[in-house]
């Protein structure tokens, strides 16, 4: 448990968007599980990070929500990606790739001398 890192707010939004793109409409618990699984259980998503992030995305119009019924007949709130959300996902994913690429160049040894 101890080695599990809390999720970083900025990246959490990106992960939520990506999850919704990959799996379609999903409830909060589903989103959390998916993120944890995808991270190979390296990340822990708790209420305090997840729900404020969802609220913020919804306010900004990237996702929308409605109440629905889960597989085992439970009432749950489902979130789905909006059109603006799709665009935002593309944009953020691109930026993120760029950032990691740049950082990778700094961090991987030997490239400079080559």
């Amino acid at each position, binding site marked *: 448990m101890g080695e599990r890192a809390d999720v970083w707010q900025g990246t959490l939004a990106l992960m939520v968007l990506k999850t919704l793109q990959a799996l379609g409409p999903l*409830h*909060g*618990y589903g989103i*959390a*599980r998916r993120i944890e699984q995808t991270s190979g259980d390296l990340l*822990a998503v*708790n*209420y*305090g990070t997840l*729900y*404020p992030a969802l*609220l*913020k995305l*919804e*306010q*900004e*119009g990237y996702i929308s929500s409605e109440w629905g019924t*889960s597989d*085992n007949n*439970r*009432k*749950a*709130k489902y979130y789905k990606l909006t059109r603006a959300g799709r665009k935002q996902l593309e944009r953020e994913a691109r930026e993120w790739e760029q950032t990691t690429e740049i950082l990778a160049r700094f961090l991987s040894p030997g490239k400079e001398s080559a």
Partner: protein
Amino acid sequence: MRQLRAFFFRLAGLFRKDRRDRDLSAEMETHLTMHLEDNLRAGMSLAEARRQALIKLGGIEQTKEICRERRGLPLLETFFQDLRFAFRMLRKNPGFTAVAALTLALGIGANTAIFSIVNAVVLRPLPYKDSSRIVTFHTKTAMFPNFTLPLTWPAFQEVRGQSTLLEETAAYWATDRTLTGVDQPEVLRVTGVSNGFFEELGGTAEQGRLLSEQDHKPGQDRLAVISDAFWRTRFATDSSVIGRKLILDKEVYTIIGVAAQGFAFPERSEVWLPLSLTPEIEQNQKFFRFQVLGKLRKGEKLETLQAGLGAIGQRIAKLDPALGKGYKLSAEPLLESRVHDAQQSYLVLLAAATFVLLIACANLTSLLMARGWGRNREMAVRAALGASPGRLQRQGLVESCLLALLGGTVGIALAAGIVGVFRAIAPSGTPRLAEITPDWTLLWFALASSLVSGVVFGLAPARRAARMAPSEALKEGTAGSVSGTSRFGSALVVVEVALAFILLIASTLMMQTLAHLLHQNPGFRTDHLLTFDLPQPPQWNQKDSESSATGQIVRLKDMLAQVRRLPGVEEVVASDHGILNGMMYEHSGLQLEGALPEQSAVTESVIARYISPDYFHMLGISLVRGREFDEQDQQGAQKVVMVNEAMARKYWSTLDIVGKRLSVSTDGKGTPQWNEIVGVVANARDVGIQDEASPEFYLALFQRGVGSHHLIVRTQANPDALAGTISRQIWASYPDQPVRHVMTLTETIAESVGDQRMHTALLGVFAGVGLTLALLGVYGVVSYSVARRTQEIGVRMALGAARADVLRMVLRQGLTLVACGAAIGAAGAFGAVRVIASELYGVKSSDPWTFAGGAALILIVGCLACWVPARRAMRVDPIVALRYE
């Protein structure tokens, strides 16, 4: 964009809060259940599954709080919370709220009222088209060193020639003319105007039309435009007024239009006519009668115009050496020329009102501070429960601003009242009086000043509350440490007392001035005197001045005889101008016989009066040499003159000048026309009560006849009772003779000091309010500190301090504050009252008695303010005090 969208969502989030809260709870509930189910499926026991889920998901309430904040606008929401809380606090302490709001209402009310007056009189642009570019013109010449004169017609033509700088110019000449052909003859303010006058000011007609260029053609110019006010009072807004006749000084004019409501230029003008001038006047280089208006072209500077005027002035000065000496033409923005002298005294009043507001603010600050100490615990508890310092500070400010707005609202009502009173008591000569109305600017000003003062007096207590460490405040409990804590409050009281002291000194000086003016001995008997004007047609209209003068003299003598016969009249005399109403006539170019060598040709002008026989005897001015005018001094007899002591001493340096001669004018060839000096009289202040006695000479009215007549009646009993009788007597014989300004001399004197009276009254009120507030402040601080020191006082008494010691201790504390304030105030007042030095009369701005008296007064009232808390301290029962808390 996204932020904006989010903002609106959050704004919407302020509402339907409960539903959203329930939604979130339900959502998290589902989340937890799903988690639990998964854990169970993974083979955990129910208890373990639940424990794991809760650990992992974290605090539900905290999440809710974060979402709540995220959902709404926390700043706005806490603001509403603060507002609700502040309302509750104010309702809970109605006494405190009332005192605080009233204190502030006084400050804001006074300030707002004076501001709206200053705004209307001094700041707001005049209500004419492009009024900021309109300038007026003046002449200065050594012939009349005491006056700033209008222009002559030739000078106006020169100014009109400056068309590169001025896009429009116009001249006007305001006179009084008599309206006849009506029940009671009436004197109207009539303005003769050149063409371009209405165009320049942007005047419009309400009925008919205004004067235009072709109305100024000689022979077709007997036309008149009347003012809206005149139309209402005289014609009851009858629209058939156009085309009616108006008989002014026996000349018939046709009314062609009514000027729009609010168009009143020059002030109180009732009729406008085309100026029609004789060729003689059009050439005259010494006939300074024409007020000239010019409108600067856009972008042109006043300085450029002044330079152009300088050149014109030099050209004109060369035409006539007597005129040319010191001859100068200048221009001045219209607004400045209108409010000139008023400006300073209004700014003084505004400063005084600001002082009152500052005192009110200081007072409130210390009130709030004192209350803040009482709420230390509460603040500490709130801080301990997680309120951030910013939050506490914000809440304090909300409370003080709310209080300020409350005070401001009452203040607005007060201000409207003060403005009303001001309009009622303002002397009629106050510039732009009609424009002074409570308006929106007033409201904004009141609102702004109450918010500013709310922040000012709320900031210090709020900051202190926020700075406090909760642990200490909670521990403090019964602590007796007072010295450090009330230092700021004491400083405030000192400032209050200092400001109040300055106001006190200023208003005392003004009161002394007023008293001096009212009890000034003018050098003659002012009791039982009734004065009034008998306006005569202006002489410039008369073809034959010699015979018309004869006619006037006959008429005047007859009127005097009729009035003299009335029961109750003791004596009546006539002069050209009234006494003590500031009106006078000056003659220039005097030549004196046998005078000091350097004075035989007098370059400056000297005050001249035209008087009937017995004038000095009736007024009680003593004759020093020679005789008064008598019935023998007729037209055709040897022309005679009298002088006053000041004149005799200045020009002859002796009083024995009877028989010497004085010339006022020359005939066509330059030969002096001599008058024989028949008497010398004592000095009297008959022009204005504030003026020092200056050289004056007197001409025999019955030898010359002049354009204006003024009767002075000494009555046997109350002069008021005779006023109507005299007017009726004159109208019975002379139905076309207006009688106006019927006033007792006491009224004339009161009117002549009207400005000072009003300023004094207002300053006095401000000083009174300021002083009261400051002493309330002293009372507040002292009684608060007594309350806080109850325990300490108890200990002292238990250890043997006598009641007198306690009394001394409390008094010492209070009076030290008052004395400090008075000392600082005295230093401040010494500098500040110099500003009003020019308004003072008969008392110096540094008058030691005033300062000493003010200090004594403030110390005595300071004692009273300390007395109540001191007695409370004396009555402290040591046993109760020790058990206190």
